[in-house]
């Protein structure tokens, strides 16, 4: 008789990397549908181009490096979707391909693949293209060809230029419902929130980073708001605008580039929130979410050391043969 022998445990909870990425795709689906509904074929074009590029680049890069293929684990698809969501509807096709390729190559594979990336792969591709070709990311210009029935001016730019007076036309409810300009998948705040809650319930992400991220945003923006409410917007305005909601649930929670210990995660999330507001208030960029996350990514190895262990307790086994 042939028995199977292996080290314990002999059970597992049947989770897998593919399942995790499937949950991520499910969580993103409503947002993607909204993007296509709003921007039509432009959005569909960006999304499909981006996903095809990430899958193809991962496949060929791993082939080139002589490593086994990891396409089926779904990570490339998720990266492709997320990268597409950051882009304005009018970006040229070559920029989509370029960015998506960089996400996979510089963001992930160069470091050895999924799990070894020090920075969020999506944001690496985004940052390189954003800095190299800023004109294509100009949201005010990107949306002029659309008439969507709501203001097509970017609220955070207005805030930067003229303080709260300039943004008085906006309603928070509109933001929640996605009636603002931005990347094709960053504006549907409510849908992103629902997707994030889905991920929390499924155990794909832990609560620490999203919650402390939001707390960071609310606390720091409240301080500014209380100091001068003519110049600085109220905390909820900050929470519901720009790329924040996507950053909170989908980008800052990238496994490899965020801490895995509870206190590290909490400080990481709060740091992201803190830096986001600082960038929004003082930097040349209207929105600083992604740069905030990238900078906090760099602190991850350090933050993982933030851990206090309770030492094991010593005791004796009365029956000394036990265990």
């Amino acid at each position: 008789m042939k028995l199977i022998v292996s080290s314990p445990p002999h059970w597992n909870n049947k989770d897998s990397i593919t399942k995790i990425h499937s949950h991520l795709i499910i969580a993103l689906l409503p947002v993607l549908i909204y993007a296509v509904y709003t921007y039509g074929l432009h959005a569909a074009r960006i999304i499909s181009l981006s996903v095809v590029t990430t899958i193809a680049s991962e496949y060929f890069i791993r082939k080139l490096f002589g490593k086994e293929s990891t396409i089926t684990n779904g990570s490339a698809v998720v990266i492709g979707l997320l990268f597409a969501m950051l882009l304005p509807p009018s970006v040229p096709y070559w920029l989509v391909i370029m960015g998506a390729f960089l996400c996979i190559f510089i963001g992930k594979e160069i470091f050895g693949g999924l799990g070894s990336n020090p920075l969020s792969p999506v944001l690496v591709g985004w940052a390189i293209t954003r800095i190299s070709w800023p004109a294509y990311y100009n949201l005010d210009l990107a949306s002029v060809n659309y008439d969507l029935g709501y203001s097509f001016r970017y609220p955070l730019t207005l805030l930067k230029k003229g303080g709260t007076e300039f943004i008085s036309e906006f309603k928070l409810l509109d933001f929640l419902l996605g009636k603002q300009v931005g990347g094709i998948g960053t504006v549907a705040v409510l849908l992103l929130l629902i997707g994030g809650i889905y991920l929390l319930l499924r155990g794909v992400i832990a609560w620490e980073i999203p919650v402390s991220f939001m707390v960071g945003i609310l606390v720091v923006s409240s301080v500014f708001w209380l100091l001068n409410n003519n110049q600085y917007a109220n905390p909820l305005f900050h929470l519901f605008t720009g790329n924040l909601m996507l950053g909170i649930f989908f980008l800052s929670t990238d496994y490899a580039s965020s801490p895995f210990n509870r206190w590290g995660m909490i400080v990481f999330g709060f740091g992201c929130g803190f830096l986001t507001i600082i960038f929004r208030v003082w930097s040349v960029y209207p929105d600083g979410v992604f740069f905030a996350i990238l900078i906090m990514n760099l602190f991850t190895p350090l933050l993982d050391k933030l851990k206090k262990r309770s030492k094991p307790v010593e005791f004796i086994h009365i029956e000394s043969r036990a265990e």
Partner: protein
Amino acid sequence: MDSLALNIKEMGITDLPDPEEVILTLKGFDPGSDTLKFKEGSKILTGEEIFPGEHSTVTGTLKSIDSLQVAGGKRVALRIRVAEDEKFDPAIKEVPDFLEKDPLEILKQLNRCNLKFSEKLAQTKTVVISAVDTEPLATIQQQILRENKNRILEGLELIKFLTAAQKVVLAIPKNLDYLVADIIEDQADVFLVDPVYPNGLPDILMRTIYYKLGLEACAYLKVEKLFGAVIALKQGRPFVHKVVTIIGNKESKNIRIRIGTPIKNLFKDSDIHDNDKLILGGPLRGDACYSTDIPVGDTIDLVYLQDSSEVILNRNQACINCGKCVRVCPAELDVNLICRFSEFSHFEECLELDVYDCIECGLCAYHCPSGRSLVQFIRLAKSELEKIEQEEEK
């Protein structure tokens, strides 16, 4: 079947007839330097000492002495053909009035009864008696508590007598508190435990109790051994039977077996198929056996026959750093880092990350989405570190 909840269903205990042959493995016996006082063909009595600390669990004839690979390593194994009529070693006597004797004498007597109680017992101030099963699927300790309700007080008396304990804590699953409803405070403290793995593991239980009650110099004992000791003294019977939960493909049951019964006697031949896993111990910490000719020792609470359709194969994909292992680890270790270091033979780094504090509960690997053999990596690191240490000593 894969829930981590501990089973708290009542399941009666039936006796398994003695097998034809019992296998006793000798821990600590070195065939190079130690000698056995028995030869093939020798007659052995139940309870007779074979080697310091090891006693025969049956009466019979020694059939052969060979070696057997078990989970703990290679051991010398005695195969004893079981005789019809059982005779006990004459050194084993009943001591019903043990309370009037010298505790050290009683300890020796227990030792003769195959209950090797620690000599450090006299220094302990708190004793935790656990009726919480250690693994999912096992229903042993709680069932023994149910069936020995009337012996609890004697057991408590005995343990207080053997130790310097000012306090005895009785740990039982939450839902079974009615079993100990009449225990009053100066007899024992009842400590209710949420019946979920790993709460019943000694290391976890003792830590929980330590942090909740702040007790000092603690010791741990399972109820089975406690009642075994009471019976040994009152009736002069050595501890040679063990209750185990048997989880088979078709049925689950609790049975009382002779310690050393080979696994093949617990199942019908037709129950075990190719590519099944036969696990001594529970689904999270048990050891898979390569053969059915391996004996069930006195530390085993559960024998689990896992059908080939339920066997999980280790995928061992690269770690994606999701941190799930870290968040579930009861020893609060950075499991992902330890295992990456171990995978690439950086064992010194594992040491710095306190790999020795791992209690091998298996929760990390249970939750790992990459299907990594985390416990195996940890065992590898521990054993390699021991080798390094031994070499340094030389």
